[in-house]
């Protein structure tokens, strides 16, 4: 059975795919689907409850929450994809080279990674944002860079175990050079755990970026970004619950979708990997 078929039989993965498919569709069609301009204010129509005019209500400046939530899907998915791309593009080669060549190089890389892993959770991303100064682009860079050590370590581990296989030794005995051994025999062993981790990592990255925006360190007004919308809605919780509820639901569904798909991929791609 190929991958697609096995995924289709995995209930969790299927639900995750449906959620993410819906969100991706929302993100792509947001400009046409949105009833209104997501950043245009209408002070006289401020704080309208959800209804036939404003499907999901309007915020404190009279902006349409539904349109903002739709456009927010674009930002969140883009931010997640870019951060994870940064993390994998930097982390995977580092882990590959360190694990394959071993020795002093590996020792040095591992010491550096140990230091970077000493900054728990979102702290490393916070430190990087403070260096680069707040903003959505810098949040993507910070969230991406802060995940590099985790990917480098994961790939290094996979390489170390793949390197011990007899077929690697055989290839070497037959005169294969390092680059060809890496590409043909080592890399395929790295891909499965990397895909699983990157999928789960997408959820984490989206959560972290939204959190940084919530703290005021990411997207700047009037951008329709979910974390920022939650921060703005926080001050109007009593009068207008809808301002913060719908973007919050958006973040949760996105992360839930990524987690379901990631868990499913793990079951399908590599049954040996368990939490």
């Amino acid at each position, binding site marked *: 059975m190929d991958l697609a078929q096995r995924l289709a039989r995995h209930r969790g993965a299927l639900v995750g795919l449906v959620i993410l498919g819906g969100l991706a569709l929302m993100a792509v069609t947001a400009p046409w689907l949105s009833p209104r301009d997501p950043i245009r204010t209408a002070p006289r129509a401020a704080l309208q409850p959800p209804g036939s005019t404003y499907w999901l209500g309007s915020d404190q400046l009279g902006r349409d929450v539904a349109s903002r939530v739709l456009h927010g899907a674009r930002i969140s998915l883009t931010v997640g994809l870019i951060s994870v791309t940064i993390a994998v593009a930097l982390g995977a080669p580092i882990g590959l080279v360190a694990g394959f060549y071993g020795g002093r190089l590996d020792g040095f890389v591992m*010491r*550096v990674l*140990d*230091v*970077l892993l*000493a*900054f*728990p*959770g*979102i*702290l490393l991303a*916070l*430190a990087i*944002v*403070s*260096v*680069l*100064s*707040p903003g959505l682009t810098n949040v993507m860079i910070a969230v991406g860079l802060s995940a590099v050590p985790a990917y480098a370590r994961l790939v290094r581990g996979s390489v170390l175990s793949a390197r011990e296989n007899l077929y690697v030794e055989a290839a070497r005995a037959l005169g294969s050079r390092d680059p060809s051994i890496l590409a043909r025999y080592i890399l395929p062993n790295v891909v499965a755990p990397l895909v699983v981790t990157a999928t789960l990592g997408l*959820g984490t990255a989206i*959560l972290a970026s*939204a*959190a940084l925006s*919530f*703290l*005021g*360190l990411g997207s700047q007004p009037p951008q329709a970004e979910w*974390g920022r919308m*939650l*921060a703005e*809605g*926080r001050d109007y*919780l*009593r009068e207008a*619950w809808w301002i*913060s*509820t719908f973007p*919050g639901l958006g*973040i*949760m569904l996105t*992360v*839930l979708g990524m*987690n*379901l798909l990631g868990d499913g991929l793990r079951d399908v791609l590599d049954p040996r990997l*368990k*939490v």
Partner: protein
Amino acid sequence: MLTWSARRILAVVPVLFGVTLAVFSMLFLVPGDPVKIMLAEFVTNPDQVAQMRAQLHLDEPILQQYARFVTGAVRGDLGTSIRSRRPVTTEIGENLASTAQLALAAMVVAVGLGVPLGLVAALSRSSWLDVASMAAALLGVSMPSFWLGLLLIFVFSLHLAWFPATGGGDLRHLVLPAITLGMIAAAIIARLTRSSMLEVLGQDYVRTARAKGLGGFSVVVRHALKNALIPIITIFGLQFGNLLAGAVIVETVFSRPGLGRLIVGGILNKDFPLVQGVVLFVATAYVLINLLVDVAYAYADPRIRFG
């Protein structure tokens, strides 16, 4: 055991050394002139720039600066906040208790909720109870803490008026933030407890205990749970670090004083010495807590020491 502990403790030294180097470098990685960035909003006359440069010792050779930074940090001197003009150590000291209280309370929530949930799921494997528990855990890991916090404020503060929505102080102020912060860790612990418990329940010694005619409860608690909890202790240190970092967000949601509010304010105000101080402090605390957990764990499980 002593040599094992000594080796583990010694291994921490280069890491902490690297942490000071990383935090020290922050100022030099800033694109542009950090002094001008820090002063930007106020003045740009050359005298004041030079004065601040001297005040931060940025006019000295870089090795001397680093030596000053490390010796200062060891003695508990993390420099002076450029906004409040107070020692960074004083600022941290004033906010530490509130964050530590929050992180500990969140840990209690995480263990108190996570272990029973995972246990119930494992004991009723594949039943609706198992599915429901694991679905709840999945929701827990997917929930943004800042949204959960707002929902709790909406229900328990604004509507039911059981707990205050914001601020710090007595225990009543601690309940909602602790639940908010502890939820993700609770979900992770629940999933881990379940898988660990399922593994232990399949072991020979559990079957032996059952075969001896021991009752279900005794087998579950004395033979299975005790061993199933071992891997959970290992992630204790890791989760505590996540709680410390997560406090940054939860403190903002509940307008609660603490290290998180301190660092976010520092970043927004371009107060680099303050940010560096808090980052260094939290990372060091995290490394030391993990060290403690590891050593305690080795005492509890001899296989680690000799394995």
